[in-house]
């Protein structure tokens, strides 16, 4: 720029060569290529299995036998979905997943509610009503988060037996509450600890006790973390197989057990299309929960997980 313009002078007229306003940007910049490239490649990796499942579930068996699992269906059929939902057999029962669906609902709803209620109460107690020994419980819980479920299976069977609730819905709810507790308690504790302590003090001066503060002050302002806890528990409990199968009976088997039965009961050839449809149907509830509440989930995560 050799024609250095005096800044006070006639710059305002500005030649077109003179930079002015926003710097022009190319759409296909190197940065965009890298960023979107990364995202798209990753997106393919993540979306591919879902694509394959959907496509396969819409094909007939002859088409599947021909090969390409990535090819879109030539002839779309909903037969596999119908079969998976209401006709697939396990042993003598040929009513597909439909039976398990309501069992799953009956198991999931109270388990989610109770496990979250207990965990949020734990978090609240740990964050606001610290008493001697509370930290010890918490440390044990955190370590408990690392214990494989299989290891705890036997002791759990014995505990439930001694409590006389083995094989009942209550028993299963207890199991889910116990094993959901470590992570959920951690989340709730972090969340409540990040709330201004003065809120708690103000309520105490106002004469509110433990339960009043919990129900009337803390609960109403914890929506984000409740959403996170709910999503984690709904997916966790809905997807649970081990406890569902060990702690229930055939007529109360959840959907995952039915799914396992359908997928693992091979009748001659593997009916991939039915299996895929069954898989999709089983995953549908948590998937819907995710798609609906994705934004809230991210917000809640920010509130509960990041502040370590």
């Amino acid at each position, binding site marked *: 720029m050799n024609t250095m313009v005096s800044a006070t002078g006639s710059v305002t007229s500005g030649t077109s060569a003179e930079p002015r306003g926003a710097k022009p940007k190319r759409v296909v910049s190197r940065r965009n290529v890298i960023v979107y490239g990364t995202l798209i490649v990753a997106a393919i990796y993540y979306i591919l299995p879902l694509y394959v499942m959907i496509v396969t579930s819409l094909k007939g068996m002859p088409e599947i036998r021909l090969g390409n699992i990535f090819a879109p269906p030539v002839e779309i059929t909903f037969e596999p979905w119908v079969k998976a939902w209401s006709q697939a057999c396990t042993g003598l029962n040929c009513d597909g997943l439909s039976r398990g669906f309501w069992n799953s609902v009956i198991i999931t709803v109270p388990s989610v509610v109770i496990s979250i209620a207990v965990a949020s109460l734990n978090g609240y107690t740990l964050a606001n009503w610290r008493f001697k020994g509370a930290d010890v419980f918490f440390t044990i819980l955190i370590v408990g988060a690392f214990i494989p479920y299989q290891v705890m299976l036997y002791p759990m069977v014995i505990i439930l037996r001694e409590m006389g609730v083995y094989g009942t819905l209550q028993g299963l709810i207890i199991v889910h509450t116990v094993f959901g507790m470590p992570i959920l308690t951690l989340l709730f504790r972090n969340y409540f600890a990040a709330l201004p302590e003065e809120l708690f003090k*103000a309520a105490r001066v106002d*004469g509110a006790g433990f339960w009043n503060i919990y129900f009337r002050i803390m609960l109403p302002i914890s929506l984000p973390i409740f959403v996170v806890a709910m999503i984690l528990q709904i997916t966790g409990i809905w997807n649970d197989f081990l406890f569902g199968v060990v702690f229930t009976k055939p007529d109360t088997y959840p959907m995952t057990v039915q799914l396992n039965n359908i997928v693992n009961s091979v009748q001659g050839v593997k009916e991939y299309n039915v299996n895929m449809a069954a898989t999709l149907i089983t995953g549908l509830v948590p998937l819907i929960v995710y798609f609906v509440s994705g934004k809230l989930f991210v917000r809640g995560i920010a509130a509960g997980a990041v502040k370590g």
Partner: protein
Amino acid sequence: MNTSVSVKDLTLKFGAITVLDKLNLDIQDGEFLVLLGSSGCGKSTLLNCIAGLLEPTDGQIFIKDKNVTWEEPKDRGIGMVFQSYALYPQMTVEKNLSFGLRIAGMAKEEIDKRVARASEILQIGPLLQRKPAALSGGQRQRVAIGRALVRDVDVFLFDEPLSNLDAKLRSELRVEIKRLHQNLKNTMIYVTHDQIEALTLADRIAIMRSGLIQQLDDPMTIYNEPNNLYVAGFIGSPAMNFFKGEITSADGRPAFVTNGVTFMLDGYRAKGPLQPGTKAVLGLRPEHISVDGPETVNTHQAVVEIEEPMGADNLIWLKHAGQSMSVRIGGNRRYSPGAQVKLAYDMSLASLFDAETELRI
């Protein structure tokens, strides 16, 4: 008049850390007491002990002559206003105000009456149906006070209620709190680390430092006759100028020498005889030094280093007796750096401290 709040030998430890150490404090009925001190000195801790939100390790607390050391906060007859206001975000203003009363199971009409009265006093009538998020800082503050007001308590506790506000609002609300106190005539205990707040609001100020009360006096006494070096340096902005030196006598009169410069102590009201040879610190407030005024027994030359015009006033920083000092003059008098000025001091307003004990002499 009776004592309203009385703290006896209060000690509080967090594990090994002693935050309050055998603290004693008596507050009169209807008094406005300010606890002033730098961050971390234990002000909030003391207030929380009085409120019953922290359990003291030792000692007793009396409110209205009743030993409340082990009472629940709600049974102490106190109301509290917090720094962040701590309004319940999910409740409307009205619900915020009435929450405590509803918890206590008070009759609906009585609640309404009290809320109405508080909202009238604080002029928040039109806001009653809003949620805290829809209020400005000042309005939130008023609601927070209202929450204490409806509970009809004897003692109001404030924990830095203005520190989150900007300067302009702060000075407005200061006046409002003062007015409120004049109307209600409750006992108020107010924690702050802003000395202007302390000076303007308090009937008495308790200056705290690491869990101990350094001086408990009315604002003017604290400002003009600080008990010790810490109080002297803490109060006043710009801060008091300090000179380290020695007491001597010149012409048979007591004097103070520092770096070869002599200050005659004529007019200083010493607490006892001034022993020549005592190492001492002389404190002079920037506004008690006159510049280029009539000569007195103490008139020195100095050079202007920096000028800080602050509108109404002008603060000039000078080099004197080998150290930097500040002098406050009228906003319309200007000195540029390098200018020579004549300084004169009024020793009746000065403070003198023993260099060792740091106590006023």
